[in-house]
């Protein structure tokens, strides 16, 4: 070797085989897989709750959704001759979240179609994990809702007999399921479940989004594990609540808005999605504010009773722009 003069007296070891690389030479224990596993763990209480409230149909939908998400991810990666990455667990999360957005009596092909759309179009066509600009599960929900609105809005009430009924927010917006066209919303509000049932999840709605309690247990786990921070969901929900009040929603209905319509699921599990939300902390605050404003506006002024999905999806699209304008000030640079 040129320039080497040291005549090694030490030949006992194998200095020629040393690994040479740029620093740092140690890495943290953090891993993508561990983060994804944490999210899955956080979703488990709500998944168990969904089976408790809606029966084995819920379990069937969850498993179908996960299995098809994994299948489509592996299949498309094989097809495009890319490395199969289903062992990063991210497809499992997409599968669970899609199922969580379905009514318990959805036919089997609904989660399969949803997973296929989410994985193939929204995730893999844009480059796979980390590169998708929209939350795959929410995009799938939007497509399913637009394509099969009656299947997607035909909610089952908890219990073995699978009676269909409206969600609390739909009751407040349009009147109840049993109410005729002439019934007023005020009369229909009588049909609302108790706040306690709203909180626990014993009421009509998509299978995974009804139990605020179980979702919050999972969310707390994610906050403790530092997978998500509390700011985005709290600002999101807070903004929604304040704006709803300003727009004239009565105080006694506010809790229904907070606990219903997938706001808890969306705020803690979708508005905190890494890939589709701003990476800057100021950007995350703007994202949360924007999603909150849109959700309240859609609920009061828009054509849908819920609005969480569309709010987050719209903010997903705005994320790169928000990110650009909220870049942190570099240390030592003039303001």
């Amino acid at each position, binding site marked *: 070797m040129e320039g080497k003069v040291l005549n*090694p007296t030490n030949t006992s070891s*194998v200095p020629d085989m040393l690994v040479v690389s*740029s620093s*740092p030479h140690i890495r*943290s224990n953090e891993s993508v897989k*561990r983060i994804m596993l944490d999210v899955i763990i956080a979703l488990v209480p709500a998944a168990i709750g969904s089976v408790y409230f809606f029966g084995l149909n819920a379990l069937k939908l969850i498993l179908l959704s996960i299995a098809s998400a994994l299948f489509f991810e592996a299949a498309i990666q094989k097809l495009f001759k890319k490395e199969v990455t289903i062992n990063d667990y991210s497809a499992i999360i997409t599968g669970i979240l899609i199922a969580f957005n379905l009514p318990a009596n959805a036919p089997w092909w609904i989660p399969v179609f949803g997973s296929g759309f989410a994985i193939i179009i929204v995730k893999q066509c844009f480059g796979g*994990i980390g590169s998708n600009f929209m939350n795959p599960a929410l995009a799938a929900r939007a497509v399913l809702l637009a394509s099969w609105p009656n299947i997607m809005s035909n909610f089952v009430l908890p219990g073995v007999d699978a009676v269909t009924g409206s969600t609390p927010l739909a009751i407040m917006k349009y009147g109840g399921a049993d109410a005729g066209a002439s019934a007023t919303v005020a009369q229909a509000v009588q049909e609302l479940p108790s706040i306690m049932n709203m909180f626990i999840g014993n009421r009509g709605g998509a299978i995974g989004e009804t139990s605020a309690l179980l979702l919050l247990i999972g969310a707390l786990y994610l906050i403790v594990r530092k997978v998500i921070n509390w700011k985005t969901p709290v600002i999101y929900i807070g903004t929604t609540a304040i704006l709803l009040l300003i727009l004239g929603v009565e105080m006694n209905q506010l809790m229904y808005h907070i606990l219903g319509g997938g706001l808890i699921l969306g705020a803690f599990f979708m508005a905190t999605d890494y890939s589709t939300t701003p990476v800057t902390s100021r950007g995350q605050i703007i994202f949360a504010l924007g999603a909150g404003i849109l959700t309240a506006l859609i609920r009061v002024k828009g054509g849908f009773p819920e609005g969480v999905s569309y709010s987050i999806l719209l903010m997903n699209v705005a994320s790169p722009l928000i990110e650009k304008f909220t870049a942190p000030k570099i240390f030592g640079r003039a303001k």
Partner: protein
Amino acid sequence: MKLDNLTFKGGVDVPHNKELTEKKALEYAKEPSTVYIPLHQHTGAPCEPLVKVGDSVKVGQKIGESQAFVSAPIHSSVAGTVKEITKTITPTGINSTCVVIESDGTNEAYEDSKPKGSLETLSSKEIIEIIKEAGITGMGGAGFPTHVKLSPPSDKKIDTVIINGAECEPFLTSDHRLMLEMPDKIVFGLKAIMKALNVENGFIGVETNKMDAVSALKSVIKPEDNIKVVTLQPKYPQGDEKRLINAVTGRVVPSGGLPMDVNCVVNNVSTAKAIAEAILEGKPLYERVVTITGNGVKKPKNLIVKIGTPFGEVIEQCGGFNGTPGKVIMGGPMMGLSQYSVDVPVIKGSGGILILTEKEALAEKVSPCIKCGKCLEVCPVKLQPLFISAYALKKDFEGSEKYGALDCVECGACSFICPAKRPLVESIRFSKREILAKRKKS
């Protein structure tokens, strides 16, 4: 003024791994039979040899010098005969002229090595001259000639001197042991720097995971002294010059600027100790404390090693490798330089020799960025490493420059924390080099 548990914004908790050597007292390494002394161990111009083959030299005798201002002379670490003047690769990757000296074992000191007087009698100019003649360079790793640091342009008025005892790199304990065993020398060195710069305020910053060193230092400071020991949160990169200034004084060194732009000068504890020895004993910088550590070495130690001793010999004295070594690093695991061979000499900037096992040296699989934002959170400069890196990997260096690539201090906190194990700082370093090369051309 707050003096305890200071810190800066950002940074990362790294595993300390200091228990391997933090309780091991300093020991002199075995006398080397032959030393290989590179004449380019510092930032700036390389030295020209002052000796020729066959000359006999003594310990502390100057053997290399340069007329350039930004340079530092090189001294012999042994007494003996110059066997060869040739080339060697230094641990920093420089292909340098190298003086090979065979020791006669007498360790006879050079005649000029005598005490230089007290701080009261020495002028500022004389102190700087002594430091220059002793070949003292920044021993925290950067290797910048100390006399240059102590000669700021006249428009930069220095009012604060900070001695860096943070030692935030995992594994390394050489500064810790020095503070514990030679606190008087470090405080003397600080006083000398303060006198050289005519400065009133002196600080020694130490992380709170070295409270024994804090009390040792405090015990040698007299109440009337303008010197304060401040404790710092153990956080990486707390020892980065600009982070340290920010933590201690609250001042922000401007982008592209130097400590003197906010009226500060920062020196490492080992440098302060070397300054003290140069004045008190007339001893030039020809040996230093090296922590030899890691799971890849049998008996980790803190050794006082003569400059020019091959790494391999030093490792031998620590019981040799513990199994097949994976990586040999000069410095710590966060910013140290991995070596191609153990046939490189210890130089003035070698604070540690870290040996990782084969398993520890394995590169982890890189996966796509999931935009988790952890790299932003830990970046002490508030950069967005994921974007700079993305541009760098696409060879869009203008893009990475726009995102502030040149402000990167290369601490590696981003790469350390990245769950996808992406080469963040590695690619930013690459783009910095490209940007600077392009600037030079145009």
